[in-house]
């Protein structure tokens, strides 16, 4: 069923894809390479002597940090520290790049009907899948080669640099293939990207548990496979066989699945639905809720799962500190007592949770724009629905959903920490740690609201805010960024509850900024052309 004729036209499609997405592709590759290069340079600067490295190695090798970063290999070398500090977030980013770009080139094209036009040309059934694989595979390769090159230029060992870069390529390849498979399942591109995103999230969680524990679960994670190659720490190359083997198997599976479905259809046939709308399905809010409830549930579920894992690992840090009393100083250098270790761990977990909540709220607010570009806004506004009510309906779902994500993950983080520690007070601590980020997450809702209102054509730029916050949160100190850059991130103004106490001024300040962004966004949305 998969003869050469089914692949015909793939080369032309590769060219078309590259031409169409050249900027997007370039930004991904350059961005990730630059991030690795700059971070690596910072790590070098951070540990000028072997004594510094030894101290860092002693302090980094604990389950809590490991759960966030990855397995601790060769931490007493600059390369090992680089792989440890920027490995995991970078691997997630590369996975995300591969996932989003693959979804974009496959199911999104198919749903839009453009693939039908393409397939009416002398283009084989598997050509679009193959072309997407080639383009995304080349992106992953470019990321790997360039990051490896950057590390070599910075004077790091060649073998380790290549291993590190290949690790990025491998994780990207796996998630490219995963998305090619999920793209076959449903005719809805959101499902394709969403399921692939769940796999990415699960990969991160599995390796977090595995790395903090006995490593076993790490071997179920594509992120883990790359990390287990131990770049800069006596590299081993065979885990790449797993990554690329799985990629090949998934790729073949995708083409097999493609043989068994019609163009435009999924493998799961859609069911007949209601012939009448439920009585309360009669407002812009009800519409927005209906459109996004699945997405709210998925984000809340995913975030809660992560919170459960992090909460559950709380006991591991405590016992680790007990075994290594010399580390107490490291964790309590701010002058706190041993209780602060759990607290600062909870605060860090809360930050990760809030970052994911921010991702939800940005994509949810941007739904306002995607509805508009898909020409679904006009029919609603042509009814007796004011723009204000329409806008408010969408924003209510976005903000309400963000509150739900934070509350749920706060409760889960606190409850799981309390359960493993047998200390009921941690429930409140965990909950408060996450909820402290609510005003900052509201700012995160305000940014896309402002952009959609004022410069709708550049709505996608709202994601830059998340990237900035991500970089500041994870690489801020590493990159030695100036204070004003750190200040752009709303998270930088949030008190690290329960280590610090909530500052009324920062809550009020962030809330005021959020209100201003939302207000200007709403007014602009009411005054502009639709569609714009």
């Amino acid at each position, binding site marked *: 069923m998969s003869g050469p004729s089914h692949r015909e036209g793939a080369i032309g499609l590769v060219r078309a894809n590259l031409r169409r997405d050249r900027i997007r592709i370039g930004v991904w590759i350059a961005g990730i390479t630059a991030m690795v290069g700059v971070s690596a340079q910072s790590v070098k600067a951070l540990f000028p002597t072997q004594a510094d490295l030894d101290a860092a190695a002693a302090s980094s090798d604990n389950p809590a940090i490991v759960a966030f970063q990855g397995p601790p290999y060769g931490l007493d070398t600059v390369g090992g520290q680089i792989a440890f500090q920027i490995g995991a977030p970078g691997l997630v980013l590369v996975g995300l790049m591969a996932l989003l770009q693959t979804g974009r080139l496959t199911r999104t094209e198919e749903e839009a009907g453009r693939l039908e036009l393409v397939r009416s040309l002398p283009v084989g059934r598997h050509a679009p899948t193959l072309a997407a694989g080639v383009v995304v595979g080349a992106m992953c390769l470019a990321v790997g080669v360039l990051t490896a090159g950057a590390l070599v230029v910075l004077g790091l060992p060649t073998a380790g640099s290549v291993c590190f870069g290949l690790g990025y390529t491998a994780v990207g390849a796996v998630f490219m293939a995963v998305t090619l498979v999920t793209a076959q399942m449903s005719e809805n591109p959101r499902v394709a990207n969403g399921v692939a995103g769940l796999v990415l999230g699960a990969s991160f969680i599995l390796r977090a548990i595995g790395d903090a524990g006995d490593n076993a679960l790490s071997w179920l994670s594509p992120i883990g496979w790359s990390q287990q190659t131990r770049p800069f720490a006596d590299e081993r190359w065979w885990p790449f066989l797993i990554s690329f083997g799985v990629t090949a198997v998934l790729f073949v599976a995708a083409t097999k699945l493609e043989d068994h479905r019609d163009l435009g259809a999924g493998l799961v046939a859609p069911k*007949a639905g*209601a*012939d009448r*709308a439920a009585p309360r399905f009669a407002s812009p809010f009800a519409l927005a809720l*209906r459109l996004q409830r699945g997405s709210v549930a998925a984000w809340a579920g995913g975030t809660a799962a992560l919170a459960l894992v992090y909460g559950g690992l709380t006991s591991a840090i405590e016992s680790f500190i007990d075994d290594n009393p010399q580390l107490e100083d490291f964790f309590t250098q701010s002058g706190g007592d041993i209780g602060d270790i759990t607290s600062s761990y909870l605060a860090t977990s809360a930050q990760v949770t809030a970052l994911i909540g921010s991702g939800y709220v940005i994509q949810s607010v941007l739904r306002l724009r995607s509805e508009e570009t898909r020409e679904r806004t*006009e029919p609603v*506004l*042509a009814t007796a629905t004011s723009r204000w009510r329409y806008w408010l309906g969408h924003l209510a779902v976005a903000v309400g959903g963000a509150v739900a994500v934070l509350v749920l993950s706060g409760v889960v983080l606190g409850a799981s920490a309390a359960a493993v520690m047998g200390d009921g007070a941690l429930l409140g601590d965990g909950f408060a740690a996450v909820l402290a980020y609510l005003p900052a997450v509201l700012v995160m809702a305000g940014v896309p609201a402002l952009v959609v209102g004022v410069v709708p054509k550049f709505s996608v730029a709202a994601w830059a805010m998340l990237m900035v916050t991500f970089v500041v949160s994870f690489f801020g100190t590493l990159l030695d960024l100036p204070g004003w850059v750190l200040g752009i991130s709303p998270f930088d103004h949030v008190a690290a509850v329960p280590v610090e106490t909530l500052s009324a001024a920062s809550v009020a300040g962030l809330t005021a900024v959020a209100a201003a962004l939302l207000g200007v966004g709403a007014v602009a949305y009411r005054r502009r052309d*639709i569609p714009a």
Partner: protein
Amino acid sequence: MDEMAIEVEGLVKQFGSFRALDGLDLHVRRGEVHGFLGPNGSGKSTTIRVLLGMLRHDGGTVRLLGGDPWADAVELHRRLAYVPGDVNLWPKLTGGEIIDLLGRLRGDLDEARRGELIDRFELDPTKKARTYSKGNRQKVGLVAALASRTELLVLDEPTSGLDPLMESVFQECIKEAVDEGRTVLLSSHILAEVEALCERVSIIRAGRTVESGTLDDLRRTSHTSVSVRTERDVDVADVDGVRDVRTEHGHLRFEVDNARLPAALDVLTAGGVLSLTCSPPTLEELFLRHYDEPGTAPDGDDLQP
């Protein structure tokens, strides 16, 4: 009550440096079906979006049902129903749910009529919108709009993608709407539909109205095709308003503006007429004249793609 449902004078809409509407006029009387015609990209949908308060206009005046479409959008929208040319639906909602939602948001959904229209258009309201064909999506939009009792229907190429059977159901529905005294603005490329439904039409090109009136008026002010045999050779080419002079199968054929027809006939009579056929322009010729001829648009612009 105002005699006019829609009054547009000198409407201007600018998108950056592109002037989409350039002094457009449109007058729709209450109770009539008004055809709104023009080539692709001539500004029909832009005009309709201004009428719906989606776009702000940069010049001219616009009145819709006696109100300002931008400022009074919500109040006016209770009194109108709209069908876009490309009905885009939420993929995971069913057709039935969408019809209910839009009707409820308008505040005007006639239950009996809803059921009747679903039957007449043979629409399956239980299917998810994702699975509807173009024609079926269009039916959802039509049922949602026609199931109302609003005084104005704004239809932007509403029948694109419908099969001929459904096209005739649509025409019946519009005739019924007019019998109830409703007003219809119908943008369309389907000339048979326009001829069957519209009393008056406005033809626009490059953002301007080039012709407006009843179809009879348009025919009158247009041209006549003449085919004639005469005893002696005649020279009609010099007569003002005569075009396309040629000889086919021994017949002299030409087109002449209706206003100049007497002058042309004088020349023919002088030559001794053996046989003479005069035919009014077909609707198609009427439209093609406006769509095609560069000289028709005041600025002679080419069509916008």
